[in-house]
């Protein structure tokens, strides 16, 4: 066989007709308008966090900064007053971290173990147990608020960090079990059988075979849980106290300081500070998020 000497133009594109071009333009215009609509509020908040107070008072909540300042961020972080304690959002930020990180990790771990037991370990009544667990996904939080309050007070955990973490671990387990079960069901049964023949028990198979194959779903679950628990407001407000207050509850009580300055500047900064951790988590693991939710296949 002879090979062609001259390489023809291989970058040929199919020509676009006028009608198709018009359609494209209309489509992208619509998309851009919608995107701007969604991004507007975020832009306003970001701009306000960078504006000096006089600008906001003189013009309005919406406007360009005449000069850019980071003062608001400092005030929000360590000076703004919340329920008469002028500490900024800093202590609440750390309180949230201390509650959210363990709650996320523990609920993810339980979900993964549940998923494994439900799909691959011939657990008796696995179907019924799974349905019961997933009912928790569809329960509105308002419905279980009071039962939780009673339970926590019976456990001596009301209005504490541990109490709120416990609520999120148990509520979250419904979601994490659902995710992990749907992922692990695609794990080849033969792997588990091979491990059994190789003499590995439940936890050894889990630890040596299942966990190493699960990073995509672990990351998805962590992102989901972290974002949800961090942003959660109803339980946070209900179970907050002067000893323990997550950042979402604290934001609500953010006041002007004694000088009577407008809240908009550092209020915007505080909101943005509160939004940073989920964003960081998402940027670190976001690649897996879409992948993990859409494909569970292990090959």
């Amino acid at each position: 066989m002879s090979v062609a000497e001259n390489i023809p133009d291989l970058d040929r594109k199919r020509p676009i007709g006028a009608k198709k071009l018009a359609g494209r333009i209309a489509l992208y215009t619509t998309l851009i308008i919608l995107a701007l609509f969604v991004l507007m509020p975020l832009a306003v908040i970001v701009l306000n966090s960078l504006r000096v107070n006089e600008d906001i008072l003189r013009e309005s909540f919406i406007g360009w900064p005449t000069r850019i300042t980071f003062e608001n961020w400092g005030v929000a972080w360590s000076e703004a007053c919340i329920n008469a304690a002028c500490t900024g959002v800093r202590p609440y930020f750390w309180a949230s971290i201390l509650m959210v990180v363990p709650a996320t990790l523990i609920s993810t771990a339980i979900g993964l173990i549940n998923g494994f037991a439900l799909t691959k370990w011939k657990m008796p009544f696995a179907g019924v147990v799974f349905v019961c667990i997933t009912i928790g996904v569809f329960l509105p939080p308002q419905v279980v608020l009071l039962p939780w309050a009673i339970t926590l007070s019976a456990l001596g955990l009301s209005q504490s960090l541990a109490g709120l973490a416990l609520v999120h671990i148990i509520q979250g387990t419904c979601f994490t079990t659902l995710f992990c079960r749907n992922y692990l069901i695609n794990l080849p049964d033969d792997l588990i059988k091979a491990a059994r023949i190789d003499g590995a028990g439940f936890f050894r198979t889990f630890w040596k075979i299942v966990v190493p194959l699960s990073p995509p779903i672990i990351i998805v679950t962590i992102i989901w849980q972290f974002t949800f628990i961090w942003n959660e407001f109803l339980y946070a407000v209900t179970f907050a106290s002067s000893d323990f207050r997550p950042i979402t509850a604290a934001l609500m009580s953010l006041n002007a300081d004694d000088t009577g300055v407008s809240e908009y500047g550092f209020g915007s900064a505080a909101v943005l500070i509160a939004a940073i951790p989920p964003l960081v988590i998402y940027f670190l693991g976001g690649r897996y998020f879409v992948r993990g939710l859409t494909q569970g296949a292990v090959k």
Partner: protein
Amino acid sequence: MASLNIETVWKKYDNFIALRDVNLDIKDGEFVVLVGPSGCGKSTLLSIIAGLEETSYGSLTLGDREVTDLSSKDRNIAMVFQSYALYPTMTVRQNITFGMENRKVPKDEQAKAVAEVAKLLQIEPLLDRKPSQLSGGQRQRVAMGRALVRDPQLFLFDEPLSNLDAKLRVEMRTEMKKLHKRLGQTIVYVTHDQVEAMTLSDRIVVMNGGVIQQFADPDTIYQKPANTFVAGFMGSPSMNFLPVTISGTDNDVTATFKGDGGEVVFPLGSTHPELAGFIGKTVTLGARPEHFVPAEVSGDGMVRVSATVDVVEPTGPDTMVVFTLAGKSLVAVLPAKFRPDEEEAVELALNIKEAVFFDVDSGDLIPDV
């Protein structure tokens, strides 16, 4: 190494009975192949032997131990899966040592065992790779290595070669046979490939619908199939079946086939004494495709028949001919140079001594007397 005794084993899934009264007595060092169509219960039986599934009834004895209620890890059995089931996140070495790790075998013994098996299977250069970096044939070897390294009492293989391409499959088949010759383990090997079954086995178990149809050596299975199922399943192309009426006397039997297109008479003489009791009755004649020859090369004990050729399929070494005999479509495997035209009338001869006969109602072989 050990013998394996399976006694009246039944298996029920929910409402479906997957195994019915399975009895097998497998000798120490024997290579037994389980064959049958898809869904006949081969993997189920293997899982029960492995302890991955429980029996619904019956018992299993491995060597001198009753193992019916022992878990897999206490049975000392190794298994190679159709999918290989290599642990994807472990290296080849870790795959092979995982079982020994679980059994807390000392590290130096592990290293020695891995080295031995790697040498035997020629996978030494692959030990630090992940399964995803291996070809199909290499994965297959690693899966074998994982089984061999444990020195178990019994090896189970579930269609281990079915994911390989045709050429590699034949190579690995030969290698498996060599390996068995050399190491002499007791092996239960599942396949749906009847060539694999014939070539590898000391004895074959043919299954259908959860029931064992026949358990015998390959020659017996091929030449004296226990019933029409075994006869039709083993051998490719399949055995030809013809309903024939038996007439004559005990020492001079004639079988007559009455088809839409006329009558064919097979004078059997005294070649089939087992038919003595069937005079006046109808039985099923079974003739393998290779028992037909072109009429001109026919000799003693051959019955000439006139056929019309429907389809000619040259396979290389042979010519497969689909032909019509008195209105019934049959298949013959003839020498490669025999190339009739389609629609052509040809004279063939059937080696009637090799033919077998089955009871029309039960489908069971009419046994020799």
